[in-house]
């Protein structure tokens, strides 16, 4: 090894450490407040799903009525947890990939607080009975400009870092993240301006709302999670992406197909006929971007299956990718016009699919990212492998239950609804067991996230282990499955391996 090489490695490590240090506060803020919102959302989810089978549960006050807690639950999950986890990972990844230190941590941190204020006011607004009644956009209408402005104040710096990056190759993760960061404001402004400012036909307004929900899943959460997974998988396994051209194909198929999805939820409504069919077709075709990315990532990671079972990051990420496959399967299975779409259109499978997308895929990949990033920016290692394992397994139990509800419960319920010669009660009764299953699933997920939140808080307080060995899920410290990223220099000295 030449001295040149050592110097460049040292500089490289110093640069990475500098980037991590510059982003420590905003990233940790987004991750911990996101995790806190996740807990709030899960508790609201348990309360509301318990009301689905036991309507008298906590029904004495207006704040806790099903219609408000359920709306607050999903909005907290999306804007409280989902977006903040995305912010934390995006600003860190974009800085790392553009090799630029963050010089505006204060502004990002302030914008993050404003975002949190907006979300809190929105959730309180919903619970107090000022929701707008548009799914996923229930925040009272004062909230959206606040969220939009703080969004720009958070991510604009990542674009600037990208522009001033050292010239060279643009990695696939950057494509995904940049695209998501451009799509989201476009979708958000379109939906909010059309629904809050330019009133139009009420049916088309409902259509735009359905498109908004779908776009948030397919054009924000999906590309963010894929961008993160395409970074973590090669980084941790120490192998290049199996097929880089396939990754590009996956990206562009996502960009071309997914903007058309969403309005299949209005099949049969008085809007132009072609729109729901396009929506159903596009949603079914989600399997193309999903499978290309998932197969690519799985084959990259499982070339060394030991690494997947040892590294918390890789294990969570791969579980998320399996979640993506299940989600793609559900997208095909639930949206076939003429056969299953009519069964799933007004059944639990809609909610199940959303939770599948937001938790089984997006959140698990985010957890993978968090297990990777936090030791680097706090310079401490995760305290306990047992806490990580608990988090993993209870999440999986919970989410498998949700998937079953989404796919089978939804279809069962739909079959009951379509049986028009039976009284309505028989259709409603079919939903009972699945409503119970959702409550149990959220309890599992809450339990798993208690471990996660506890662990993350400990890390934020910098009470983690001082060690250069990453916390792995096996007892022996034989060899590090972390590839090039194994040298994380927690002791503070820069060394070149």
């Amino acid at each position, binding site marked *: 090894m030449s001295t040149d090489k050592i110097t460049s490695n040292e500089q490289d490590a110093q640069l990475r450490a500098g980037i991590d240090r510059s982003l420590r506060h905003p990233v940790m803020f987004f991750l911990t407040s996101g995790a806190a919102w996740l807990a709030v959302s899960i508790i609201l989810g348990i309360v509301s799903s318990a009301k689905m089978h036991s309507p008298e549960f906590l029904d004495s006050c207006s704040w806790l009525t099903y219609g*408000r807690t359920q709306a607050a639950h999903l909005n907290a999950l999306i804007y409280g947890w989902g977006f903040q986890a995305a912010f934390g990972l995006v600003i860190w990844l974009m800085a790392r990939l553009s090799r630029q230190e963050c010089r505006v941590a204060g502004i990002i941190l302030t914008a993050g607080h404003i975002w949190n204020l907006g979300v809190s006011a929105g959730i309180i607004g919903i619970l107090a009975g000022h929701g707008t009644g548009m799914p996923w956009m229930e925040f009272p209408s004062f909230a959206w400009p606040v969220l939009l402005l703080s969004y720009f104040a958070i991510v604009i710096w990542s674009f600037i870092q990208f522009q001033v990056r050292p010239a060279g190759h643009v990695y696939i993760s950057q494509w995904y993240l940049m695209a998501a960061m451009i799509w989201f404001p476009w979708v958000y402004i379109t939906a909010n301006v059309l629904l809050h400012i330019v009133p139009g*036909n009420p049916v088309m307004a409902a259509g735009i709302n359905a498109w908004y929900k779908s776009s948030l899943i397919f054009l924000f959460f999906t590309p963010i999670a894929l961008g993160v997974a395409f970074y973590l998988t090669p980084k941790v396994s120490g192998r290049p992406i199996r097929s880089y051209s396939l990754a590009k194909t996956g990206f562009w198929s996502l*960009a071309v197909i997914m*903007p058309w999805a969403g309005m299949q939820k209005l099949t*049969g409504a008085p809007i132009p006929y072609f729109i729901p069919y396009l929506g159903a077709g596009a949603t079914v075709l989600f399997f193309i971007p999903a499978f290309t990315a998932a197969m690519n990532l799985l084959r990259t990671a499982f070339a060394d299956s030991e690494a997947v079972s040892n590294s918390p990051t890789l294990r969570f990420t791969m579980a998320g990718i399996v979640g993506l496959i299940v989600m793609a399967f559900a997208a095909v299975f639930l949206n076939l016009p003429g056969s299953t779409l009519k069964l799933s259109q007004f059944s639990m499978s809609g909610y199940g699919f959303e939770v599948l997308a937001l938790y089984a895929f997006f959140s698990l990949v985010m957890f993978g990212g968090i297990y990777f990033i936090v030791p680097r920016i706090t310079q401490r290692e995760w305290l306990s492998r047992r806490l990580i394992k608990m988090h993993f397994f209870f999440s999986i139990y919970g989410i498998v239950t949700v998937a079953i509800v989404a796919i089978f419960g939804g279809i069962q319920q739909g079959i009951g609804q379509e049986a028009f010669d039976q009284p309505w009660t028989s259709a409603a009764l079919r*939903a009972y067991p699945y409503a119970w299953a959702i409550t149990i699933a959220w309890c599992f997920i809450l339990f798993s996230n208690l471990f996660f939140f506890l662990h993350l808080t400990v890390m934020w307080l910098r009470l983690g282990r001082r060690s250069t060995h990453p916390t792995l899920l096996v007892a022996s410290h034989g060899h590090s499955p972390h590839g090039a990223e194994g040298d994380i220099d927690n002791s503070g000295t820069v060394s070149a391996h």
Partner: protein
Amino acid sequence: MSFRTFFLSLFASFGVAWLAIIVVPYFKMRSIEPLSMGEDAIGTDAVFIPKRAGRITDGAEVYAENGCYLCHSQLIRPTYAGNDLFRPDWAGLAADEDRGDTRRETNAYDYAGEDFAQIGIMRMGPDLSNLGRRVEALYSKNISPEEWLYRHLYNPRWKPERRLSTCPSFRFLFNETQLTGNPSDEALPFAGKNGGEISPKPEARALVSYLLSLKKDQAVPDSLNFAPITPAPAEQAAPAVPAKPADAPAEEAPAP
């Protein structure tokens, strides 16, 4: 690929869909053409005016704020998309004493007066497209439809046959006042927690007024009327308003 090409490709791939399914349909549907009812017996060409009576704007607000749309839909799908039309009381009444079979699918005029069509996302409860007519004609036997809905909102499980309902109670839309003198006309036949009298708050009045405006009993133009054709009188196609439906015994949809 440069950032410029990347951005332009992204702009194109998203922009086409955005224009085709969002912007153009939205602005085209902002002003839908008035529909002709077809020539009537005298030979005049009337325009279809959707009629809804009730406190639609503030009632819809109460409906939205309390998340009714999370369990109830307001959409009768055509038969290619589902069987909603065949339920005897969802899409109109299969056997309406005044009008005969009024069942039809939802049209773009059904949400007149609302900003946002509460099409709904899940049916834990039944579709509400025709709730107003259903309550008037079927549920409220000896009491007014308003009274029936107040009782239902206060306690959805108060009738034995509805004991399995999972609809939440909206007790918070009602006042409990201590009884001094004669009970009010609007008092519900339930005792409050403190033995007081239960009467609806303004929000409950608005909501009930809105719910009663959900009806499918107005005659619609032929171009919108896809009601199942009743087998009995085959020759009566021409008049827009059927003179007298003689089809009561031939109902195909069984009782609930």
